């Protein structure tokens, strides 16, 4: 911060400091120095007074000494030569009979941070390690760490390291903890201080002597320890049990971290530990300090990922207080959404409804989003509240409600009737672009059910010249096109005007290109347009049906008790999709609408000139493996509900028809060795599958067991008259691949003739592989039956999986 008159002040202070009258008067001298420090901490550059301050250092007044040291340590780096003058005084102070003066001198000697002074500092530091006063030893131990970091390239002095190790047995607990800290820094390249069994047990035994900061440090260092036996592990755990429920949140958190790292191989014990910290964490949530409350809340969110029911009974503790800051309220609402169940849903929604009119617009929007999330399971009640909120006619609330409704309809299409009804008339209150985009998307997709849709769009089209938001314009184009398809008579005229404006007058390239694209598309005929534009109306994944499974603790254990959970964007805000839902869903495949009928001959091209995801060799394999010209297609699209119905129905039919022996569909099971597949991210898997026109419908998250993916596609062979539908499931249980006989037994009824071939093929594969490989079980159902197509499909799928897996490895 610029400080006017800074130079004037410096000059005046210099005059005062060198005035012998001031120097002789203890109190005046000290007050002048106080003024210097005050100006310094206000940001005025005081480095010009360095030599005067060096002189002021030689005094018997401890307070003055301390003040001068504050100054010297701040400016030493700017005046390395003058700093040499201080060293003499400091070294003399190191011999002082008063331990306080000794520790002060030693600490500031190392705080000067001048590599040129290292040679003068080493001797007093070495003496400091053997000082009889604990406060000097504390400073000396850390001094070595400072010294090491000053000259990081120099050799580590083994004698010092040994001495530090021996000081771990120092009677003063702070010296012991400082030794740990110093060794961690000095031996950073070797992975920190050695944590072996004797040191661990020594530290654990002395844990009680330390204050909370020391305990946290020790617990943190111990995370590296690996107990040698299960008995030892449980001894340590029971020793630490009291710390786990400590009333001090830092100790509780550090202990839980340690528990999680010690028990990484024993999920059951980790889960028990999580149950145990529920009480202390909840108490921290009610702490007087709101920052502490916030920290505890963020960590509770982590715990809920593994035990969703952990806080179920305590949902009232997460109701927002009246005067709490917005960041706490928003986190609390995120937690509340997780805790909802049949008993408390009415209470929770009532509470959330109260937050929707919060003074803070962000809090209000977060509350509305939270209601939308609950709406996925309790849609009727939530829609009632959301519709009621529209009546407030406030722009930020209406905008949030419309966005929430869009997200809700995307996931739960059954809500669309209520939403369409509620949409009437809310365009007048919408101000921001996000809200208007959401409204346009809804009008486009459900235009045939909103009677006033063409009129609403007309208002938008009339105002398009003054429209500033790019997103709104793009959304308007798409919505008008979609509405044109279902209500051509009302929309044709305005569509013409909009396209004309966008092509002729619009300056933004994106809008213009999209308008041109639609224009040309209309030239291709109405059927083609319909194919391209009428995509999905709902989420293609089965996320809602399957629900969010509990994650293993190991997923987040590393980020527990770090700053990670407290950061803004770190929590997965699934519902905050700000564009239209299908765009966010299809990120890996931006031109999803246009490439629905890719045939296999193009795959090779895509692969070789693609984004480097697939190597050329894999493309070759792919090409050679497809003997018959087989093409896959995603059309007609299959909704998740339809998929689920078919899948279950076929399962039942299969059981019946096994005896009958005749069937118009086939199902087969196959094992594919691709060990890293379950660890690959859903996005890359989805992208890879879409390259070959296989649609993935639902995933379990990576790293979870059993890992499943559901997918489907349509095949058509060039020589076959009709296309077939293939539904598939990839399953990875994490166990050894089952023996061939088991498969044969379970599947021989349906597999039929080619089952034997596959059997042989698989045995061939297994023969070449080493036995312990993990395998993904592929279950396919085809309807109607077409063996050739099924085989072709399987080889494509296998190739994709292998490619992905080799790229992971």
């Amino acid at each position, binding site marked *: 911060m610029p400080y006017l008159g800074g130079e004037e002040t410096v000059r005046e202070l210099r005059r005062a400091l060198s005035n012998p009258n001031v120097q002789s008067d203890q109190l005046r001298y000290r007050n002048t120095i106080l003024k210097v420090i005050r100006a310094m901490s206000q940001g005025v550059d005081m480095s010009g007074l360095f030599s005067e301050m060096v002189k002021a250092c030689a005094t018997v007044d401890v307070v003055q000494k301390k003040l001068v040291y*504050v100054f010297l340590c701040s400016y030493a780096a700017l005046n390395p030569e003058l700093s040499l003058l201080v060293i003499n005084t400091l070294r003399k102070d190191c011999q002082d009979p008063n331990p306080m003066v000794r520790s002060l001198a030693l600490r500031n000697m190392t705080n000067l*941070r001048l590599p040129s002074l290292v040679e003068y500092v080493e001797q007093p530091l070495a003496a400091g390690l053997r000082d009889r006063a604990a*406060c000097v030893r504390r400073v000396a131990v850390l001094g070595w760490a400072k010294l090491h970091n000053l000259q990081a390239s120099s050799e580590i002095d083994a004698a010092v390291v040994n001495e530090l190790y021996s000081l771990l047995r120092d009677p003063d607990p702070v010296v012991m903890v400082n030794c740990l800290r110093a060794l961690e820094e000095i031996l950073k390249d070797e992975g920190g201080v050695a944590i072996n069994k004797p040191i661990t047990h020594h530290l654990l035994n002395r844990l009680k002597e330390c204050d909370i*900061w020391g305990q946290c440090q020790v617990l943190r260092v111990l995370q590296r320890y690996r107990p040698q036996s299960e008995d030892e592990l449980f001894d340590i755990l029971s020793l630490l049990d009291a710390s786990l429920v400590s009333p*001090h949140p830092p100790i509780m958190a550090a202990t839980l971290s340690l528990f999680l790292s010690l028990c990484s191989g024993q999920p059951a014990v980790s889960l028990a530990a999580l149950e145990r910290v529920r*009480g202390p964490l909840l108490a921290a949530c009610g702490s007087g300090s709101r*920052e502490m409350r916030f920290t505890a809340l963020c960590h509770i969110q982590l715990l809920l990922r593994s035990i969703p029911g952990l806080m179920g009974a305590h949902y009232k*503790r997460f109701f927002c207080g009246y005067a709490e800051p917005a960041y706490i309220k928003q986190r609390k609402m995120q937690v509340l959404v997780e805790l909802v169940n049949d008993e408390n849903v009415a209470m929770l929604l009532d509470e959330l409804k109260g937050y929707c009119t919060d003074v803070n617009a962000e809090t209000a929007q977060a509350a509305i989003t939270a209601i939308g999330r609950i709406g996925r399971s309790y849609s009727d009640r939530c829609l009632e509240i959301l519709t009621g909120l529209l009546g407030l006619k406030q722009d930020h609330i209406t905008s949030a409600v419309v966005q929430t409704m869009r997200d809700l309809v995307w996931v739960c299409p059954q809500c669309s009737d209520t939403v369409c009804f509620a949409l009437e008339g809310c365009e007048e209150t919408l101000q921001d672009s996000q809200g208007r985009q959401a409204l346009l998307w809804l009008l486009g997709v459900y235009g045939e059910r909103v009677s006033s849709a063409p009129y609403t769009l007309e208002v938008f089209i009339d105002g398009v010249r003054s429209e500033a938001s790019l997103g709104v314009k793009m959304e308007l184009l798409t919505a008008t096109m979609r509405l044109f398809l279902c209500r051509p008579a009302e929309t044709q005229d305005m569509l013409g005007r909009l396209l004309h404006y966008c092509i002729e007058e619009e300056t933004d390239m994106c809008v213009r290109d999209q308008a041109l694209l639609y224009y040309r598309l209309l030239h291709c005929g109405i059927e083609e347009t319909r194919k391209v534009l009428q995509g999905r109306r709902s989420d293609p994944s089965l996320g809602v049906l399957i629900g969010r499974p509990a994650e293993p603790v190991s997923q987040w254990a590393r980020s527990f008790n770090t700053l*990670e959970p407290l950061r803004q964007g770190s929590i997965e805000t699934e519902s905050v999709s700000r564009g239209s839902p299908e765009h966010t869903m299809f990120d890996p495949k931006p031109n999803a609408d246009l490439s629905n009928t890719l045939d296999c001959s193009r795959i090779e091209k895509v692969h070789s000139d693609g984004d480097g995801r697939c190597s050329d060799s894999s493309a070759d394999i792919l090409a050679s493996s497809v003997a018959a010209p087989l093409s896959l297609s995603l059309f007609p699209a299959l909704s998740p509900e339809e998929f689920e119905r078919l899948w279950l129905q076929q399962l039942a039919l299969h059981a019946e028809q096994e005896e009958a022996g005749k069937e118009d569909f086939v199902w087969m099971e196959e094992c594919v060795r691709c060990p890293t597949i379950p660890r690959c991210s859903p996005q890359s898997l989805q992208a890879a599958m879409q390259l070959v026109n296989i649609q993935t419908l639902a995933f379990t998250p990576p790293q979870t067991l059993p890992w499943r993916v559901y997918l489907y596609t349509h095949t058509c062979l060039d020589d076959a008259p009709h296309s077939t539908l293939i539904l598939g499931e990839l399953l990875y249980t994490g166990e050894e691949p089952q023996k061939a006989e088991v498969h044969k037994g379970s599947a021989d009824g349906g597999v039929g003739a080619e089952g034997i071939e596959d059997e042989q093929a698989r045995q061939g594969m297994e023969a070449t592989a080493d036995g312990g490989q993990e395998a993904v079980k592929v279950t396919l159902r085809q309807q109607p039956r077409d063996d050739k197509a099924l085989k072709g499909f399987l080889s494509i799928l296998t190739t994709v999986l292998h490619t992905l897996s080799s790229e992971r490895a």
Partner: protein
Amino acid sequence: MISQIFILSSKGDHLIYKDFRGESGGDAVGVFYEKVTALTGDQPPVVMSHKGLHFVHVRQGGLYWVATTTADSSPFTIIEFLNRLSALVKDYCGSLSEKSVQMNFALIYELLDEAVDYGYIQTTSSDVLKNFIQTEAVSSRPFSLFDLSNVGLFGAETQQSKVAPSSAATRPIQSSREQGGKSEIFVDVIERMSVVIGSNGMLMKADVEGEIRVKCYLPNCSEMRIGLNEEFSIGKSQLRGYGAAVRVDEVSFHQMVRLDEFDSHRILRLCPSQGEQMVMQYQLSDDLPSAPPFRLFPTIERDSGGRLLMYLKLRCDLPPKSAAINVAATIPVPKGSLSLSQELSSPDQSAELKPQSRAVVWKIPRFTGGMQLSALFKLEVPGLSSASLLEVGPVGLSFELPKLTATGLQIRFLRLSPVQPGPSQRWVRVP
């Protein structure tokens, strides 16, 4: 591990800046303040990052207490430390404000120097620190309890003359050396209560978070015994004595409290160190032993002129002997409310429309038990619709109740050993 610590005023003035490790360099303070001012809300998030620099801050006494640190450090530890640091500064300087920090910056540098070395927390115990801290605190105004007699506190001399105001304990712990030593000890029972009452008058939620705090100015106090109500019980199952038990759900104690007499006689034994300590914390949720101290009966309607009429009746259900002070009711009102006209039942009350927070604040300085007050507010709201009525409420009430706790927890006695020489005076403090 902490790289830097700095204290900023709410306007962004640098008050204290200390760099422990000299690694991050640059203008961290400037970067932090830029990030704070760039946000629209008045409540910046606790953790902010900028190019590998992580700022963790707490707000205490209207100041930003900021630490910069690495991403893997424990937020619990850092936040606890910053809170502890502000408590230490409060103990040593008497009170916590921009002014007191500015006046005592030398003392605070000294504190920081002893509490943290090379970014590692060394100690925050005031017992240890008092041996090292040499600087005297400068307090803005010397406080003496005798000043109280000429201050007519809240207009009730007879009873109030025995009550010391909350500012009585805002003096530095070490100034006693200079002033000849006034041995005082303050024991506070503070309860924060949050109650939600539904529109039908049903009690929907009630929570009490309470704490016993001891603020000690005794230079040499070896042991202190605090006696609580004998019928004090913890948890749902346990019941002691007859009649109305004083019950709480959970209790936690400071680590220095010895509980050998707690089970039998409900006596806490401790050796307080100088400064302020939280001796005991407790929580009670859902069933309160007594009715909430206030009931509000609101009537809200629109009049013919398109104005919003709010008729509020507030009844104090305390026993007639006690009274609540500094009662403030905050009533959220529809957005865009322009002006407020008010009819209040007595001249010492006041009401004000705060457009910033979209609320009407109704203040009552003193409210005796059994009384009933009413207020009529007329609000000018352009474009008032029936839906706007949804925006009215919920009403928030804040108040102080001297000598009364919601849980019924009381301090029976306070005994010190060795016995202090000279006459002892007892005071009851207003929270």
